[in-house]
């Protein structure tokens, strides 16, 4: 239980009065101190009664967009929260997301009006599980406060933690091989390449990694057999931090939030995977790469050194990349075919020619090459990109496409939700 500032002051006054009464042997001071203690005790009992009534009325019913879910994929959660308020009591109910999941969108807290009738609120948010396995929700947190006291009760009964989230691992998948190498169509189907558990064995075929040969079984049958794995082989995600341009104003509050998010994720990744890689960029400029760092304090001190708005030497000036330009050309051609209006046709033709000219002379930006070279230094299957999203966001699209082209799952965290929608590749 937390005593508010006013209550702490009243406790101090009553203590001083009772001490003075004892020292001076004065009944009047004792009476004043005693009544103050009685008043505080009464308020505490009233608060406790209210708290119990409120907590007893809280109920939550969650529904998931899908269950089971694959690790690293977003999941929509809708929670119906029922609770009762009380006059002069502030009530906040928070849905506690499962451990090892990250909240990516939405809010998990509702405020209940100070009304004794039962109230229903709906929460809708998106989470991304980080680790595979079964994970129940952490429960519900109810915070109740009045003028004198504040207390938080965490409801973690079985029914408050339902449903249990089943997170499936995401393995490393074998790239499709050509028909010629194995001679059948089934070989095109993706299969788990490396992992922790052996799924099955199959005969060795040319091109298979020799390290996957099961020598014991091979010796037994006189033929080479290779192991097929199931489960995941975890490698830590690459954390990419896009720092704002120092020459223009940036939202300080969002920047602080982003820094705290990145620091939290770095700590979590280090705890989970024993090492972490962080790439610091500012627009289309690569600033620094912290590669497979194992020491938390060293990593944090490096981050402290770099995590501040930086000067940008290169800019994209809202440049569309080649695939955007091609889709714009296609849109113009579609428009040209569909419109009978000569004016519009002339407009579409002019636009198409302009896009084609740009496409013809556009070179692959140096940024792409730099990113590709940087990525070749680390082994990753997913990346988290943190950005404020202020100003030009074309480098974010470019970076996300580049990562996706290398089969790297990208999770973009933009502090400004409106920009996040726009920058999504």
């Amino acid at each position, binding site marked *: 239980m937390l005593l508010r500032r006013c209550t702490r002051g009243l406790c101090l006054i009553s203590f001083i009065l009772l001490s003075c009464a004892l020292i001076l042997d004065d*009944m009047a001071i004792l009476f004043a101190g005693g009544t103050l203690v009685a008043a505080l005790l009464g308020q505490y009992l009233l608060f406790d009664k209210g708290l119990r009534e409120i907590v007893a009325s809280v109920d939550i019913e969650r529904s998931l967009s899908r269950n089971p879910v694959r690790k690293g994929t977003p999941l929509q959660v809708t929670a119906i929260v029922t609770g009762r308020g009380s006059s002069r009591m502030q009530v906040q109910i928070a849905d506690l997301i499962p451990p090892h999941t990250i909240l990516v969108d939405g809010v998990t807290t509702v405020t209940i009006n100070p009304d004794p009738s039962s109230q229903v609120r709906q929460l809708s948010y998106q989470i991304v599980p980080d680790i595979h396995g079964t994970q129940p929700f952490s429960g519900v947190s109810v915070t109740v406060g009045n003028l004198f006291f504040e207390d938080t009760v965490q409801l973690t009964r079985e029914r408050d933690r339902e449903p249990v989230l089943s997170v499936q691992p995401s393995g490393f998948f074998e790239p499709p091989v050509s028909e010629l190498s194995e001679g059948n169509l089934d070989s095109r189907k993706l299969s788990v390449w490396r992992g922790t558990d052996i799924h099955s064995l199959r005969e060795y075929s040319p091109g298979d990694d020799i390290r996957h040969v099961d020598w014991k079984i091979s010796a037994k049958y006189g033929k080479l057999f290779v192991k097929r794995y199931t489960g995941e082989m975890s490698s830590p995600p690459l954390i990419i931090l896009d720092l704002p341009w120092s020459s223009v104003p940036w939202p300080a509050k969002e920047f602080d939030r982003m820094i705290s998010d990145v620091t939290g994720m770095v700590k979590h990744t280090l705890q989970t995977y024993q090492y972490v890689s962080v790439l610091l960029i500012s627009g289309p400029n690569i600033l620094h790469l912290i590669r497979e760092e194992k020491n938390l304090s060293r990593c944090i001190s490096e981050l402290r050194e770099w995590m501040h708005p930086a000067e940008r030497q290169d800019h994209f000036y809202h440049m569309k990349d080649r695939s955007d330009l091609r889709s714009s050309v296609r849109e113009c051609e579609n428009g040209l075919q569909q419109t009978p209006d000569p004016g519009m046709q002339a407009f579409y033709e002019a636009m198409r020619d302009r896009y084609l000219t740009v496409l013809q002379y556009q070179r692959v930006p140096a940024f792409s090459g730099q990113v590709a070279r940087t990525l070749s230094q680390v082994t990753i299957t997913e990346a988290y990109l943190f950005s404020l999203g202020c100003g030009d966001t074309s480098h974010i699209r470019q970076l996300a496409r580049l990562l996706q082209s290398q089969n790297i799952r990208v999770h973009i965290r933009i502090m400004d939700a409106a920009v996040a929608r726009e920058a999504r590749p």
Partner: protein
Amino acid sequence: MTPPQPEYPFFIALAIGVTGISVLLGSPAWYLNIALLLLVCGILVITRTLHERGFYLVCAGEPLVVACGIMNLWAGLFSACMLAGIVYGALGLLESQKDLIPFALFCGGSFIIALLIQVSNHVPLALLVIGGLTAVILAIQSVRTYQFRKQYTGA
């Protein structure tokens, strides 16, 4: 027209009561009571817009309760009850008829404390009783809170 604030009737009752008791008892330090009453009045007016108004009122009112208690214990009880009414009213804790119950309970509790002090000869014994009662209530409450949390945490 705004409805009258509930703390002002209590203050008027306190002012009349304290003045009347001071005159009736012919206290040699009557001017002290009046001065402390003016202090409460001043704080009541000055702190109208402040957030921690209740705390300031208690700080200003307790010396008056002590002064009245020195004069006569029952005068102290009266001023303590009126001060509680002022503080409750200022904090918005007397908005409905139902809210009068905690106030009445406080008055009842204060009466019991006054009775206890009346029958006690020295402070330590009365203080021991008050402290002991408080400790017992807090201990019972701790056990109840533990059971309550255990029930809701599913442990």
